[in-house]
């Protein structure tokens, strides 16, 4: 009884919190609350005002606690972990609810009306998987296939005239025994690699990097929900490109100039060495303020045309910040690629524009 009821009530609760996340998606997109809340396959999201309102005391209530500490010592932070008072008062707490990547991706898809990604057919690598699906006549006892063994024994006894209907006794001998055996099968698996490329030169302020960070968080969730294995590579560049880890990627700051082509070259090198486009679905997400030397931009165009675009499922470029007349990388792309299939670029001027940018990037179903 309880089992049925709890699953109903639990489903309804999940439905409600998903609705809240969807309603507040814009808020979550803008704030950095969710970043760093991912642990493995779940993301813990703080949901506010899910609890029913009631007449209750406000913040000047205070209470009684226990333990060490002098007068004036801080014992906890507001909102998130107010210690409860005596009695039955749950403090004004924010509920943390775990969501799987798939659930979040679904919410994102519903809100942005995203089509599912169609992996490129020929890019599937063969994954190995072992199956006990073959029967052999040697093997170990625990894997003995009884039915087949007795069938063999019956066949032998019938052929030799040893079987009698009056006394239907079947005794398998060694050569009747059949065993299960494993066979390695090759199954197609979809693997993907995401290259995140970010300009970390002096002109990229922390605010702009934060915008990048929000966008990549959601991009990651979306792509991750479609592929079994997702590799990520973070390329930070000024006039040179560096392969860095995720943490450095968002923090790094250099004072150098800008040469986007350096990052492209590094990506091309990695495609050649490790991530063959034959085997991987390749994604590029590039963020920059668009301030690049013209001659370097021409080099970039060449790389894009010759190598990157043919290799990629999707190449997205987001020009962050308020672009000035010198920030014209996006204009170069506009001029050079009047016809484009898997190249998408857009402005992300501030955090309000993350949502439309995500829609532009991911809305093609690639």
């Amino acid at each position, binding site marked *: 009884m309880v089992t049925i009821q709890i699953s109903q009530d639990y489903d309804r609760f999940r439905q409600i919190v998903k609705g809240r996340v969807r309603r507040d998606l814009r808020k979550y997109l803008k704030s950095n609350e969710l970043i760093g809340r991912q642990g493995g396959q779940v993301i813990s999201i703080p949901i506010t005002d899910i609890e029913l309102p009631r007449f209750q005391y406000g913040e000047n209530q*205070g209470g009684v606690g226990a333990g060490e500490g002098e007068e004036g010592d801080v014992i906890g932070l507001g909102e998130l972990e107010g210690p409860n008072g005596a009695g039955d008062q749950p403090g004004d707490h924010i509920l943390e609810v775990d969501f799987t990547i798939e659930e979040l991706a679904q919410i994102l898809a519903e809100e942005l009306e995203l089509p599912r990604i169609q992996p490129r057919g020929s890019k599937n690598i063969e994954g190995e998987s072992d199956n006990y699906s073959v029967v052999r006549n040697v093997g170990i006892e625990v894997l003995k296939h009884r039915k087949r063994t007795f069938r063999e024994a019956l066949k032998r006894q019938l052929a030799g005239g040893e079987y009698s209907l009056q006394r239907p006794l079947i005794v398998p001998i060694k050569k009747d025994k059949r065993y299960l055996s494993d066979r390695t099968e090759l199954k197609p698996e979809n693997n993907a690699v995401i290259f995140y490329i970010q300009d970390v030169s002096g002109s990229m302020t922390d605010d702009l990097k934060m915008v990048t960070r929000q966008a990549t968080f959601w991009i990651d969730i979306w792509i991750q929900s479609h592929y079994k294995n997702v590799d990520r590579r973070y390329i930070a560049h000024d006039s040179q490109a560096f392969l860095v880890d995720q943490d450095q990627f968002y923090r790094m700051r250099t004072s150098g100039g800008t040469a986007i082509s350096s990052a492209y070259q590094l990506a091309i090198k990695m495609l050649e060495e490790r991530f063959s486009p034959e085997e991987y679905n390749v994604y590029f997400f590039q963020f920059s303020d668009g301030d690049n030397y013209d001659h370097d931009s021409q080099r970039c165009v060449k790389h894009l045309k010759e190598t990157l675009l043919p290799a990629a499922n999707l190449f997205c470029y987001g020009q962050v910040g308020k672009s000035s007349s010198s920030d014209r990388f996006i204009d170069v792309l506009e001029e050079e690629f009047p016809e484009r299939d898997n190249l998408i670029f857009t402005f992300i001027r501030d955090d309000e524009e993350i949502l439309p940018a995500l829609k532009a990037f991911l809305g093609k179903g690639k």
Partner: protein
Amino acid sequence: MIEKLPTELKRCKYRVHAVAREYGLRFPEIIYEVLDYEAMNRVAAYAGFPQRYPHWSFGMQYDQHAKSYRYGLSRIYEMVVNSRPVYAYLLKCNNLVDQKLVMAHVCGHGDFFGENLWFGRTDRKALDTFANHGSAVQKYIDQHGAAEVEKFLDICLSLQQLVDIHSQFIRRKPNGNRNGGQSEESGPESVRKLPVERHYMDSFLNPREHVEAQRKELEKKKRERELLKIPESPERDVLLFLIEHAPLENWQRDILGMIRQESYYYLPQAQTKIMNEGWASFWHSKILTGSDKGNAYVQPAPDPVLEAAEVVDYADHCSGTLAMGRRLNPYKLGLAIWRDLEERWNRGQFGKEWEECDDFQEKSHWDRKLGQGRQKIFEVRRIYNDVQFIDEFFTPEISQHLKLFAYRYERSSNTYKITSRAYDEIKRKLLFSLTNYGSPVVEVENANFKNRGELFLRHVLHEGVDLDLKKAAATLEYFHWLWKRPVYLVTVVKEEEIALKFDGTHHQIPAAKLASIQ
């Protein structure tokens, strides 16, 4: 779900119960059910009741229990339901020592439920009652749709604490129907006639003119009553008031009545949390370790339930449940007071002489060898609730021993800070958090405010702690949904009376001073 109690546990049960009874605990039959943690989380979501009305908030409870179990933050050791017989749940994966401990603990609760006066009026068939509520709500869902009923339940649950904590024992209105759920409107008062045995005598004994005159008189009285203020005096049982006066449909009135009934069922538990948990902990430790052996005062001192070898496990468990952290642990506070109480009455550390003695040396060796401890704690268990218990028996020594402090929230730094370790301040805060089981007292003052049928609520007994205005405004919206006319709430903020108002579309922002709306 129900499994038979394994023989081993049954043996524990008999042993533990026998010892508990020998100590003088009086509890009804206790039925234990063994559940795995998954089932435990499920049952805990419904507070131990196998069947209740469907609502997502139970799903939320479950989500939180399951999550904290998964992360190893906490698990539910015991759960006990106040009913006859008492139902208690044991966690399957616990070891035998833990099971004995839970059983001993449950005996304490069983005794408290049965013997404490504040539980005197609780529904002992709550399991059935709650299950009936479940099927009734299910029926309404079938009739009116899940969304409609859920919306209404949300409203009811948001207001569920607005009951009158004393009304179980006081009759505030003559002939008031306090049972909730069945507040059927009684028919119009009819004229009293003399009884007649033969119908042809009727016109003779009750002449038409007289009857007519009386009927007019009654009607006049009724109209006069209607002109009077409703309610006559401020009504603290807000839920009852709404049941009786809000323009609700019958099914809504029925559901509101059920929620009110469940609120009253839980009320004594909220009013005696510290005592009840302390009492159960006090007894489980006595029952398991036989700590009375060698205590001259205590007459029945049965053998402990635990073997010597099990005591380490027991100690390990206790260090878990009684750990303090930074939060006030009601188990520990209650236990400390009960122990202190028994000790003091054993040694005669009470009364005028003791109070007036200010010689520390003499006080620390004070022993009049009275041995009244056991008698005293049973007496206190009978007639006290948390407020009285803390008020009378919470001492500076206990406060110091448990390292209690008072804290408050500081907005500027968004932190909670320790404000004081002074006994008076701590006691004041404790008592405040227990008064009206920690909820603000809100009364219906006038249901016909400005003679326009508007509902006027007042937050009374303001003691310097202001309401959370955001939450209060949201709650007012729910009131409006029920009342369908503008609603007001008067409260005090920063020592100034203000009124919140919601008229169905707008909140009055900022909240106006009281004088300006009258």
